[in-house]
């Protein structure tokens, strides 16, 4: 049985923040997530994509953002990536309320939210090259349903 996945690319335009949330929510919807699980996933997608747009690409729509999502057992894995500015000091960046752009009214809570809403988070960032955030969340819904209902539809 092949597990499902998706890979999505779009430019660093703020209108794509809601698009990215809906796309990820639609992808996981077949796993029958709870409303809380769905809100958590939408929120972390919004945080990571917004960061790539503002911090990674400084709002330059020539920048491209990639989202990959897949299912591993009962976990949903999300990878959100940009080829933007990158992060110099990761420890500082992850601190609650820290923001490098207070003049843009950033709250500095993006990474804190990602850490709290997901089961695991891994950040790889290279200054001048980009940032890649890998996050996982265990879902309490019945993932196995998916393969079964798919098999049924070939008849």
């Amino acid at each position, binding site marked *: 049985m092949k597990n499902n996945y998706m890979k999505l690319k779009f430019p660093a335009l703020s209108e794509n923040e809601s698009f990215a949330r809906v796309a990820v929510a639609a992808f996981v919807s077949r796993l029958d997530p709870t409303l809380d699980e769905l809100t958590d996933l939408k929120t972390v997608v*919004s945080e990571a994509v*917004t960061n790539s747009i503002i911090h990674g690409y400084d709002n330059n729509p020539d920048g491209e953002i990639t989202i990959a999502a897949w299912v591993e057992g009962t976990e949903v894995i999300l990878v959100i990536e940009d080829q933007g500015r990158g992060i110099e000091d990761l420890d500082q960046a992850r601190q609650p309320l820290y923001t490098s752009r207070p003049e843009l*009214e*950033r*709250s500095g809570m993006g990474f804190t939210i990602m850490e*709290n809403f997901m089961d695991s988070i891994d950040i790889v960032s290279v200054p001048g090259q980009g940032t890649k955030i890998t996050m996982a969340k265990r879902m309490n819904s019945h993932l196995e349903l998916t393969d079964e209902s798919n098999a049924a539809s070939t008849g």
Partner: protein
Amino acid sequence: MSLQMEFEHRSKALIVRLKGELDHHTASTVKDRMEEAIKRSNCRNVVLSMKDLVFMDSSGLGVILGRYKLIADLGGKMVVCDVNPAVYRLFQLSGMFKIVSMADNERSAISSLGVVS
């Protein structure tokens, strides 16, 4: 979806109702329209109703905090009301409740202003 706003000028407070999704894309609209409404209003207090807010992320925290500072500078108070569990969690994580007070609904938000002012 996106974001819609509704303003109601009362004697004790300006009521601002947020509907839809508050993220980085819609935050600038919230900023601009609230500043304009606060300038036009006679009262310094603001009640921010989140009854019909279906999504908010940390960009929403930022824009609310920014408006809180403006109102505090003008000597006013800000009360948020009808906060759903998801938004409540964001407020709690960020320590927002230490500075912005919360009420169950618009009526109790307004009466709380009556007591404190």
